Every structure is written in structure tokens, then in C-alpha cells.
């Protein structure tokens, strides 16, 4: 596989081109041509694809996309070009597992194949939703980490410093990032699982300097956590990302190559998102030297990932990588419904049925449309982790009819989703137990409905 310095050099030597021309003359026409060349078509109904030949064609199209369109570095205005041989070598040599955490919490996430029903996928919970004060922050992290089936957590954000939000790239942002990590580690310690890994980016850190500062050992991030490096826009590899690649590789940290292909953006519709998402996973190892991938396709207008075409595309990209590469993957679901709503649970069940049976690991999502501060509710995430483990016992063939039953329960509500609850509305401030009976009932009702549809979700 080409070495890292050579990868960085590709941003210095490729063809010069403006960003607009890169999209209009390379990426967009090439993607369209490849979709036609490989006969990639979504039938507008299927949620969980079971056509393995189509899956493999998506993988081939992704390889061709990287080889024929390249990536784009906006700082140098050059196309980063890679040969097909380099791409296939990176694909063949990608990590098949990634080990996170410390002590007895040190565990290994594996790349999964579609229809694997006899393994236990990695279970990741949480999200970067904002919290309004330190107590809610600590309680949220502690309860997330206390979920016994959880292998890693994403931690919420806290941007306030002396009552004010920190501004991007400001010195306060660095302090906020360090504070976030200190609080997160303390919350995890309180759960009694000190070694549990944090594998998300710190939302308070918008710049590499803030993430690097938060990595200083005194604040608590460790190379055995996971560090996200993202593609800024479709196929764009910016210097900030490459700076992170340079640093995290230098400290041998776990890197989560991260991508958010936009449905409705340059990638177009379901087919384009499936191919582009798959290409990102290949480039995640080739360019970012990732140890796992954080896949987060998103609807450009609704800002969520639970529409039918998007779930199909996300599942497809997992299957394409699972069958052809074996790179470990988690997928970040953005949901329409607010925390604690039935809509939110239906969306998660549908998403997890498609993604986990297609080769993804388990990741509880968080509200995106009906999001509000303090709306990371740990018992939602426990329920969704349980759903993910239940889905892992099914094949794609078994998952599809259940997903089809679920979609009508939330599909029409995505543009105007049900509002949800906050941490404070769900939990007793003293005992930290659920005080909201309606919240518990909604969860119990959905669990029973899922069982009726064929997805038994045991309480962990």
C-alpha cells in the first residue's frame, strides 16, 4: 500500500482544477456514467437489498469512481489521483478489526459480512447532542456507560464556558474541547467502567488544534479511543483532515474515517449515495489510514438518514464493503423523531434491521430533526442497542419484511416529526431512574409491536 507521505504528496502533484470544475467535469459526470456502466438501480421499494451481484457492482463502481474521478484537495486545488492497483491494494490490506479501550473494557470491533447471524456485533451508543449544564452532562455520560451491553460511547457536547458558547477556532474552543473530555472521562469513571472507549469526535472541537489539545493525556483521550477524520464535502480531502491523519497516525491512535455523503447533493439519489459511501470507506483506509469507518449519509434537506432510499443506500454500502473488503463499520443514524417518541424507536428499528443484517455494527442514533438540548436520553440508547443485537440474529431476507412493516409507521412523519423529551423530563434528578411513565410505556409498546412483527428484542 502506498505510504502516507506519498498520499500527502498526491495533493501536491495532481491536475490543477477549480472545485466547481472538479464536480461538474469529473465527479458528477463520472458518478452518473458509473451508475449506468454498472447498472446500479434502486427499485424505489426495497429497504434491505439482498441482491449480491448488485452489491458487488456497487463496490466495483466505487473503485472506479476513485480511480477515474480522484479526490479533491481544496487547499492545493489539485485532484488527488490513485491508480486502480493502489486502490485495490488498500482495499485488500485494510484492517479487518480495530481494538479499543483499556483494561477489561479493551475489546475488538470486527468487520462483518452480510447475513452473519452467529456473531456479536460491536455496540456503540451516544451522540454529540448539546447539554446545558455539567450535571446533566455527567449524568448522561454515566448512564450511557452504565449500559452493560455497550462497548463504546459517543459523548455529548458542552460548549459553555462561563455562561457563553465558545466560538469556532477561538481559544475558548480549545478549553471547551479539553473540558468536554475531562467531564466525559469522569462520567465514564463514575459508571465503574474506566477503560470504556470514547469513539466519536469531540463536537466542541471544530479544528485540529482543539482535538490535538484534547488528546493531551492529562485531559483523558487515549490512542485506544477512536478519532474521527472526515471528508469535508463530496470527495474533498482537506488539509485539516490530512493534519489529523498525520497526528493520529503518529500516536498510533484508532482512526475512524468518517463520511457524510449527501442525498440530494452532488451524489444525487440513492444509487449515487450508495456508490459514494462505498468509495469513502475504501478511501478511509487508502487516504486516512482508518482502523474503522464511521458512515453517516444524510438527507440534504431533512438532515436525517431514515428515508427509504437512504436506508437502502446505507445498507448497500455496508454490504458492499462487508462482502469485498471487511473494514469494520459503524453507521451513525440521524432520526426524525424526538427522544422517547415511538417514531424515533420505529426509525431506529428499521435502520438497524437494514444496516446490521448488511454487515454494519450497532450504533444507536440520535434525533436530528426534532433535536433539542439535553435530549440524549440513555434508556433510548439502551433500547436501540438491544434492537441492534436482536437484528444481528436475522438475515437480510428476514429483515426486509419487518423493515417494510415499520417504514409506514414513520415515513410520512419525517418532514414534521414528533417532538421528544429531554433528560430532565425523563429522569428523577436524585435517583436518576425513569420518572416519566409515558416514556416507559412508549418504549414497552414498541418492544411489543416489534415482537409481533418478528423482531424479539430482549431486555438486557
Amino acid at each position, binding site marked *: 500500500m502506498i505510504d502516507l507521505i506519498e498520499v500527502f504528496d498526491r495533493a501536491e502533484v495532481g491536475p490543477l482544477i477549480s*472545485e466547481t470544475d472538479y*464536480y*461538474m467535469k469529473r465527479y*458528477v459526470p463520472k*458518478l*452518473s456514467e458509473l451508475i449506468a456502466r454498472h447498472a446500479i438501480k434502486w427499485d424505489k421499494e426495497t429497504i434491505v437489498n439482498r441482491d449480491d451481484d448488485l452489491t458487488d457492482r456497487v463496490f466495483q463502481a466505487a473503485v472506479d469512481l476513485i480511480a477515474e474521478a480522484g479526490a479533491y484537495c481544496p487547499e492545493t486545488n489539485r485532484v488527488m489521483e490513485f491508480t486502480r492497483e493502489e486502490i485495490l491494494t488498500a482495499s485488500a490490506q485494510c484492517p479487518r478489526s480495530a481494538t479499543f479501550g483499556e483494561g477489561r473494557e479493551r475489546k475488538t470491533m470486527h468487520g462483518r459480512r452480510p447475513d452473519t447471524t452467529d456473531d456479536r456485533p460491536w455496540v456503540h451508543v451516544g451522540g454529540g447532542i*448539546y447539554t446545558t449544564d455539567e450535571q446533566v452532562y455527567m449524568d448522561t455520560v454515566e448512564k450511557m456507560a452504565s449500559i452493560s451491553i455497550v462497548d463504546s460511547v459517543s459523548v455529548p*457536547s458542552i*460548549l459553555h464556558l462561563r455562561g457563553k*458558547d*465558545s*466560538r*469556532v*477556532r477561538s481559544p475558548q*474552543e480549545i478549553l471547551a474541547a479539553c473540558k468536554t473530555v475531562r467531564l466525559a472521562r469522569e462520567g465514564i469513571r463514575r459508571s465503574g467502567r474506566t477503560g470504556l472507549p470514547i469513539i466519536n469526535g469531540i*463536537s*466542541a472541537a*471544530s479544528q485540529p488544534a482543539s482535538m490535538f489539545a484534547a488528546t493531551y493525556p492529562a485531559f483523558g483521550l487515549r490512542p485506544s479511543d477512536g478519532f474521527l477524520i472526515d471528508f*469535508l*464535502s*463530496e470527495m474533498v480531502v*482537506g488539509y*485539516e483532515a490530512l493534519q489529523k491523519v498525520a497526528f493520529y497516525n503518529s500516536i498510533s491512535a484508532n482512526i475512524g474515517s468518517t463520511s457524510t455523503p*449527501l*442525498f*440530494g*447533493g*452532488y*451524489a*444525487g*439519489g440513492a444509487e*449515487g449515495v450508495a456508490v459514494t459511501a462505498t468509495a469513502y470507506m475504501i478511501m478511509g483506509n487508502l487516504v486516512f489510514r482508518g482502523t474503522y469507518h464511521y458512515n453517516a449519509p444524510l438527507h*440534504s*434537506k431533512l*438532515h436525517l438518514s431514515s428515508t427509504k432510499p437512504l436506508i437502502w443506500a446505507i445498507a448497500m454500502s455496508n454490504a458492499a464493503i462487508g462482502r469485498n473488503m471487511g473494514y469494520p463499520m459503524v453507521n451513525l443514524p440521524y432520526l426524525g423523531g424526538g427522544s422517547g417518541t415511538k417514531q424515533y424507536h420505529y426509525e431506529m428499528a428499521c435502520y438497524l434491521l437494514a444496516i446490521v443484517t448488511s454487515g454494519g455494527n450497532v450504533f444507536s442514533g440520535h434525533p436530528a430533526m426534532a433535536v433539542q438540548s439535553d435530549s440524549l436520553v440513555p434508556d433510548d440508547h439502551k433500547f436501540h442497542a438491544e434492537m441492534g443485537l436482536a437484528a444481528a440474529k436475522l438475515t437480510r431476507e428476514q429483515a426486509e419484511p419487518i423493515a417494510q412493516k415499520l417504514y409506514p409507521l414513520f415515513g410520512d412523519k419525517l418532514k414534521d416529526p414528533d417532538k421528544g423529551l429531554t433528560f430532565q423530563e425523563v429522569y428523577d434528578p436524585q435517583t436518576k431512574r425513569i420518572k416519566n411513565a409515558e416514556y416507559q410505556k412508549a418504549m414497552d409498546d414498541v418492544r411489543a409491536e416489534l415482537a409481533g412483527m418478528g423482531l424479539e428484542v430482549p431486555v438486557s
Partner: protein
Amino acid sequence: MGNEAIFAELKQAIIDQDQEAVLAAVDKALAAGIDPKAAIDQGLLPGLTVIGEQFECEDIFLPELMQAALAFQAAMGVLEPKIKEAGGSGPKKGTIVIGTVKGDLHSIGKNILKLLFETSGFEVHDLGIDVDLFKFVDKAKEVDADIIAISALLTTTLIGQRDVIDALKDQGTRDKYMVMVGGGATTEEWANSIGADGWAASAYEAVVKASALVA
């Protein structure tokens, strides 16, 4: 071929995002003596309206929108000089200065909106991403803008939208421009709290609101 047929051809060529067909139809229109303004108003713009609707309904996506916009711009490259030769000016709903706030490197949402503004008849001056607040202010003054449209995706960059409004107030020019804010991190409550004149949840809605603001 009658004028109506040529208007229909112009419209269909835009809907097909076919630049060659658009230019061929423009040539036909001029050869038939059709007023260039009529070619725009009755041929190109109705086509763009359909494109906007298809984009909103997810029948087409950003690449198709961009192709339609390029075809429209190519046609305008031929028609505008003709209008100016005749002493007129092109159709223009208003002038918009658009950009993503300082510290924010995200461009796709802003680019989609820019295209929709352009294809809806606005003159758009795109300042790009990571834009210094005074560039918004200076450009608006330079082009005598009607609207300043400011995008922010990250919560940590939202404050940059308020900064632009504060700078306009400090310079005593707040009333001279409409300020629209948008982007993934924004809400209507945020827009109201900083005194913006408009906010929209989607690019298409933003065009509708901008059109109302300049009407």
C-alpha cells in the same frame, strides 16, 4: 414554427438540462424575431420553475440542477447582450450576496441555494466559504445588494451570522439590506433572536421567502 412552439422548446431544453438544445432554441428564437426578454420570461424561466419543482420533489438532484443552471447561464450569455443592445436590462428579481460564515468550511447547502437563487432570476454574488464578516458588508455595499444571505452549518459558527448583523448596525446600514440566515445549525428561533429578516428550512423555501422580501 410559431413563437409558442419555440417557447415550449426553450422550456423543454432547460427541463432536459441540455445546453446544446437550449442554445439551438435560443438561435431559433432570435431568428424568428422573438424579443429576447420574452424568450427568457416565456421559455427559459418556466423551464427553470419546473426544474425547481422537480428538485424540491426529489425527482432530480443537485447535479441536474447544476446542469440546468449552466444551460440557463449559457442562454443568458447570448440573450443578455441582445437586450442591452436594445437599451434594456435582463430580468432581475434582486441582488443577493451569499456566503458561509467565518470559520465554517461547508459549501454544499450554500451552493444549492446559490443555484436556486440564480435560476429564479436573482443576481447572486457568491463569497464562498469561511467568509470574513466585513466581506459580506463590503460586497453588499459594492453591488447595492437587496439581500445578504448567510449560511452556517456548525453550531460553533452560528455566532458569525449575528456578527454580520451587528456590523451592519454599527455602520448604520442595517436597514439598507435584508438579512437571511440558514444552514444546518440554524433555527427560526435563532434567526429571530439575532434580528434576521428571513430564515428557511430548505433552499427552495429560501427562494420563496427571498422573492417575497424583494417583492
